[in-house]
């Protein structure tokens, strides 16, 4: 009898526990149904840009070699994070962010990077990443917090490749950096709809900024600026890049090691030219001009046909990104059940009411008149971002400064396409929306009060917000 009573108690407690679990809000997770993401924005094409989009997409998929590529895709390295744009920008379609299977995990020991080791933070099913050391090491190997670094430390080298001659390079000291707490990560930003963001004029963004100041959440915000002309820069995790052209040129050089018309030299690591007392004076001579054809490795091709082929790769990449349509919204499946449209609509209203949309502005404005295609003219930019940089506090800070953005400031991540993203936040630290929302709260974060509002909602309301976010 006593045993029966005990069992009943345990059963009742277990049911209560399970009921509690059922009540807790659940991230619906990555929505797998095709939404048509990755298509072009071009519908009418009076100026003939569609072939440029297609050509750019093809080049985005090209695999780069160091030299002797039969398809003439040369220039990789001597340091790189990957050998193909679309290997990092692939989820849920070409142009997106990191995929479920990390291509970087297979590079070390393969013909891609035969002499290298896989860094400890690269795993088979983890986020595709780049790494940065916020501070340089001293000549004695100790970290120097008085000497900020912050540049990309490429993960791999061309050492030992059959197309790289005698070039032999050491990978950055990732393990030592981990021990010194001197390493941060970034994941690829998706570029769907990037042409719309590029075509927002500064006046629209400035007007939106001032309107957003009328809030009772403690949110302000600022813009990052191009250091040359002073206009608002807008691409990258800290809005450090002005245009898609510059964004592409820098990524080609930094992530793949391909010198180009915007960045004409091979790029050493941030300290490889002597900073921090390494004694190095740049890349060794046997790691330069590995194509054997001089610099830049990517150039325009004046005699090529058709017209799109005349462009250099960087311009072709920029066109591909520029003409990618914004990611369509879509239905949401939670625990095998289709979420109702009314639930998603309720989540959208809640998202605005509690203050999320102060920064993750559903539409910061409409685009200026475009000289490219009509679809980029006068179009609403439903990016769920104000394109401003905000203080995000110590929990998210990475101690990396880019342009005018400090170590704790990040661009409001555009949320369009969020429903099909796997890894979240700038470093891909989580795959769970709840954790990503929670991370907005912290010492020095502008989003703390809004996150508190989220916590103050009922679990059902919180669920509606999560459902809404996965519809984007």
């Amino acid at each position, binding site marked *: 009898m006593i045993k029966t009573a005990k069992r009943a108690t345990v059963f009742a407690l277990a049911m209560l526990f399970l009921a509690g679990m059922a009540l807790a809000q659940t991230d619906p997770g990555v929505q797998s149904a095709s939404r048509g993401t990755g298509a072009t924005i071009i519908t009418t094409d009076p100026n003939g840009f569609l072939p440029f989009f297609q050509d750019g997409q093809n080049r985005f998929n090209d695999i780069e070699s160091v030299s002797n590529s039969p398809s003439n895709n040369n220039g990789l390295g001597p340091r790189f994070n990957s050998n193909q744009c679309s290997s990092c920008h692939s989820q849920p379609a070409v142009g997106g962010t990191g995929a479920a299977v990390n291509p970087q995990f297979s590079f070390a020991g393969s013909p891609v990077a035969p002499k290298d080791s896989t860094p400890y933070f690269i795993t088979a099913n983890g986020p595709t990443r780049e790494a940065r050391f916020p501070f*340089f090491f001293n000549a004695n190997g100790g*970290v120097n917090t008085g000497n900020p670094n912050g540049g990309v430390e490429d993960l791999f080298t061309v050492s030992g490749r059959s197309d790289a001659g005698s070039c032999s390079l050491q990978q950055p000291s990732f393990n030592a950096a981990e021990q010194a707490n001197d390493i941060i990560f970034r994941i690829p930003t998706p570029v769907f709809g990037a042409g719309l963001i590029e075509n927002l004029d500064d006046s629209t963004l400035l007007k939106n900024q001032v309107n957003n100041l009328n809030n009772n959440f403690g949110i302000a915000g600022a813009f990052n600026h191009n250091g040359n002309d002073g206009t608002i820069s807008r691409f990258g995790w800290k809005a450090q890049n002005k245009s898609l052209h510059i964004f592409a040129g820098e990524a080609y050089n930094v992530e793949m090691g391909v010198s180009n018309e915007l960045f004409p030299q091979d790029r050493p690591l941030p300290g490889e030219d002597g900073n*921090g007392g390494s004694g190095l004076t740049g890349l060794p001579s046997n790691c330069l001009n590995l194509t054997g054809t001089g610099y830049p490795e990517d150039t325009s091709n004046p005699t090529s046909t058709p017209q799109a082929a005349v462009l250099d790769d960087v311009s072709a990449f920029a066109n591909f990104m520029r003409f990618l349509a914004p990611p369509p919204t879509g239905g949401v499946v939670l625990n095998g059940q289709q979420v109702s449209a009314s639930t998603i609509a309720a989540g959208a209203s809640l998202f605005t009411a509690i203050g999320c949309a102060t920064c993750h502005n559903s539409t910061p404005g409409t685009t200026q008149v475009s000289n490219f295609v009509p679809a980029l003219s006068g179009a609403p930019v439903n990016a769920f971002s104000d394109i401003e940089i905000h203080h995000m506090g*110590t929990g998210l800070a990475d101690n990396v400064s880019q342009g005018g953005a400090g170590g704790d400031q990040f661009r409001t991540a555009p949320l369009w396409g969020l429903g099909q993203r796997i890894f979240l936040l700038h470093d891909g630290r989580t795959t769970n929306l709840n954790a990503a929302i929670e991370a907005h709260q912290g010492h020095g974060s502008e989003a703390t009060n809004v996150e508190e*509002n989220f916590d103050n909602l009922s679990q059902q309301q919180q669920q509606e917000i999560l459902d809404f976010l996965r519809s984007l």
Partner: protein
Amino acid sequence: MRCVVLRFLGLGLFVSFLAWGQSAQRNGGDFSNDTHPVTKVPTGVILVKGAWSSASDSVTPVPEDGSVTNNVFRDQYFGMTYALPRDWTEKYKGPPPSDSGRYVLAQITPGDSFKGPARASILITAQDMFFTPLPATNAQELINYTKNNLQADYKLELPPTQTRIGGRPFTFFAYWSPVAELHWYVAASEIRCHAVEIVLSSRDTKLLESLMLDMSKMEVPAEASPTAGTGGGDVPVCIKDYASGENVIARVDPVFTEHRFNPVPVRIIIDKEGKVKHIHFLSAFPDQAKAITDAFKQWKFKPYLRDRKPVEVETGIMFGRGLRPATGNASVE
């Protein structure tokens, strides 16, 4: 035998040299072989800052120095003391002041031991009225602007109403979100040319009412006290745009060389002789702060007289690019 030993030694040396050649790691820059470092980058500290707040001295109070200690919020600059409800705490500090002159002075929430049907938050902010791009010249107008420009998701519960808290005039209004079932109670008062706002939010209106009652215990400067903005004693009088026109006898503009495109709002205190006594950078890069500091050494103002006696003046100057003013209606309707 000797030959064998030498060969062995030679082979050993060769092998060890090979091993050294393969495994030797550089130190410095991006390389380190220090896998047990004595010095580590501290966690939870922002060492690399962008535009940030700073001041020419650490003695003169500045708004962002407010803090919660022993369950009491104190801000010496504003002369505010606010005893928080029991078990309420500031878990997270606010961000630095913005380049539009907005401060988050404190964000207070119930502690883990709080028991109630719903949580709540107390947000204490200040808007420097010298730098707001919103069309408001005082706290009351700022509240009116907020109310007149509430998003469609919100419903007004109480229009801006004049009240008194701690013996000081406040403008109070309330609104709510039917969809979120969250209510916001906002009380604002003008202190030292800032609109100091206390924003309470919760789903539980009874809790909000009790928090409002609690606020009556808040100590704020009396309407006529020097700290309220009229100046006197150790506190300067605050005057908008004092650093302009005939008030400025000598002026040398700072030259920005590194960072040039951000707004740099600066509050200064001018002493009785017309020299800059204190500089508070709300948001500036270090190179900008230095350029402005160097320039101010050469500024000279006409002393401000009250009853024919010079008094200290606090005013604001926007360097760099100011924000574009908003349009809109801040009038009482």
